[in-house]
């Protein structure tokens, strides 16, 4: 057991640093610094740079376009991209449906969809939750009825992140109403331009348009776009949830987040001293750092387990719970740190409007981000559901 990087790892770390320094888009950096909402093009800009380099999907098997990196190299990659404050790529294609397709898909599905996920040609969204099916996902009621070589899909999905940009969506639909809930679900890939699909925005507390309602009305989906067997979609769903949970720990990004909070608290004054010298504020930052270290080493232990042949298992629920709590505490501290200037509501730059937002740059997204990040303990299986999973799968209750 040791924490040393080998000379090869150190060389790799330098290569990654150099690559980011030379290739990360300057205008993206500017927008991030200003706290502007990022567009689809912004995400795709960085995506395409990584695709061109061959570094877009480090977690994928090499045969499907992965990098073949060791777990340590992947760790270095996530550390370095977070350290350099690179935007996080959308997970829906790369981290979610991609692994489902290469694990459960047909050769045709793999050949068609995987290269398009890698290149960024297709933007994916996730059709899971429904108005009546949140934590109880298996109760979903969107139906798919066979009609020759097609399914006819009817129903409503909700909380569909960035569906307004999506070319494709992966959907859980009910294909057998009489079977036990989990046994009547199938996993469909649906072209979002299909007739009968309507996407309606839901505006969240921070004022963002991130999530949507998706209505499906007699949408025709070729049977060839079903992944895995009919009525076995829950298997794909569970697989994907475990994958989603590991990434969700967000250790490297939270490390970067703490540095940002500290920088703000060194700038903001509390009396004649920096806010960070206030013992109460400082203690909260320190406890957050300690808790993040505990999460980091728990994730490293889990990666070592994965390295030894154990895939991401139910213990990844721990990473989700602690990771999301830490992300929220970060936004809480940021909002507290900015003081009065948490209040002004900046609606973003309108057409031809270059007027600078009120207050310091770091302040105007503090409250919206705090509001927005309440989602982290709710999405991806709420933290209460994660506790149920640990109770059942790890503790055997």
């Amino acid at each position, binding site marked *: *057991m*040791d*924490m*040393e*990087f080998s000379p090869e*790892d150190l060389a790799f770390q330098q290569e990654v640093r150099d690559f980011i320094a030379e290739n990360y888009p300057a205008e993206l950096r500017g927008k991030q610094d200003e706290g502007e909402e990022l567009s689809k093009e912004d995400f795709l800009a960085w995506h395409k740079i990584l695709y061109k380099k061959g570094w877009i999907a480090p977690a994928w098997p090499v045969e499907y376009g992965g990098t073949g990196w060791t777990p*340590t190299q992947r*760790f270095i990659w996530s550390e370095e991209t977070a350290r350099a404050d690179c935007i996080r790529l959308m997970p829906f294609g790369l981290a979610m449906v991609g692994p489902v397709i290469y694990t459960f898909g047909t050769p045709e599905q793999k050949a068609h969809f995987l290269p398009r996920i890698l290149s960024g040609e297709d933007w994916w969204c996730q059709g899971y939750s429904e108005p009546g099916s949140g934590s109880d996902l298996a109760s979903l009621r969107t139906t798919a009825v066979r009609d020759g070589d097609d399914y006819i899909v009817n129903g409503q999905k909700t909380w569909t992140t960035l569906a307004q940009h999506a070319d494709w969506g992966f959907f859980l639909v009910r294909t057998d109403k009489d079977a036990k809930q989990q046994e009547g679900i199938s996993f469909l890939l649906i072209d979002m331009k299909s007739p009968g699909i309507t996407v309606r925005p839901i505006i969240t507390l921070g004022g963002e348009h991130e999530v949507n309602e998706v209505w499906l009305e007699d949408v025709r989906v070729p049977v060839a776009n079903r992944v895995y067997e009919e009525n076995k979609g829950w298997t794909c769903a569970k697989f994907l949830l475990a994958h989603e949970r590991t990434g969700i720990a967000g250790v490297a990004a939270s490390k970067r987040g703490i540095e940002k909070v*500290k920088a703000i608290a*060194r700038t903001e004054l509390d009396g004649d*001293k*920096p806010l*960070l*010298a206030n013992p109460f504020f*400082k*203690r909260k*930052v*320190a*406890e957050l*750092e*300690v*808790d993040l*270290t*505990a*999460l*980091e*080493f*728990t994730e*490293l*232990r889990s*990666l*070592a387990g994965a390295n*030894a042949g154990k895939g991401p298992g139910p*213990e990844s629920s*721990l990473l989700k*719970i*602690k990771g999301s709590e830490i992300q929220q505490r970060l936004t809480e501290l940021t909002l507290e740190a900015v003081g009065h200037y948490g209040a002004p509501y900046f609606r973003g730059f309108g057409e031809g409007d270059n007027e600078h937002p009120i207050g310091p740059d770091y302040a105007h997204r503090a409250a919206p981000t705090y509001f927005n990040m309440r989602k982290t303990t709710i999405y991806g299986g709420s933290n*209460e559901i994660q*506790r*149920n999973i*640990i*109770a059942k799968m*790890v*503790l*055997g*209750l």
Partner: protein
Amino acid sequence: MDFTYTETQDMIRDTLSRFLADTYDFETRQKFINGDTGRDPAIWTALAQELGMLGAAFAEEHGGLGGGALENAIVMEEMGKVIGIEPYLPTVVIAGGALKAVGGAQADAMIPEIIAGNAIIAFAYAEPQGRYDLANLKTSAKKDGAGYVLNGHKSVVYAAPWATHLLVTARTGGGQRDADGVSLFLIDAKLPGIVRRDYPTVDGSRASEIYFENVAIPGDALLGGEGAVLPLIEQIVDEATVATCAEATGVMQKLHEGTLEYTQQRKQFGVPIAKFQVLQHRMVDMFMEVEQARSMTIMATLKLGLPANERMAAVSAAKNKVARGAKFVGQNAIQTHGGIGITQELAIGHYFKRATMIEGQFGTADYHMDRYERLALAD
């Protein structure tokens, strides 16, 4: 970067765990901790001579297995699982650590005695006025010819009633709280002028108040440079703190497992109380604290070799997290057991007592958070 144990390390854990399963069940432990001397010396001898366990963390040249901090952590975690009261921490981790750091003839003479199980060494460092400040010392060692004369009062010296030797911190110069002037002595525990008041501790061990009354000690009892060993003491106390975190991990794991078992047997409202979601979620929270304690112990163990400030920050981060976790897991284990949890009858309460003492050992959560902030969180 590698987070796996070696085969030898796995073997040490397995061997010790099997031995303790055979010799250290709760009833047996209760019997000897409540006996006259508070221990069964045959266990220490077996650990040394049958298992070679006391040599796990020493170099091969001294007759050890060539290990270090990771091996200490393994032993301490297994000890924690049986709430063991064996003096491994003061003898091997602390005194052994000091001897390894100092080296030379003193190490050559004493380490084989430790490995053989002949030496039990208690660490006399705390004083009534000093709390966790290692430099706050009224105990003095005055030069007297080739040797020293020791005077002072040491508090709550665990394992002192059993000790063959004492590792003592004392002032050879400087003011009461100065960094300079702190010295370290390894002395025979039976020297004239050493007065002990022995007592049991709440967590099943034995300890003493020790009074040094003009104790004449030889010059070669001095470990390291005269008046210059505060950094060494800080280092070995950091090593001991991490080892205690490892012990805590074992204690916490058993508190959690015991609670899981109990809730599956205990029925109320016609069902095992483990069926209640409020208790399930509490036990998940306990599980997460155990796992994080384990992670922090590994983190700090791996960082013991870093430069002093980084090492101290890492150790303090670990001890803070482990102390908070030990309190949470201990209190919730008792609460979940209900009335039976507050009796002496079940093992769970005894694990809780040890967990509670560990919280404060070598500094509370707050003490370590202060130190962490000083070292790692500049304004």
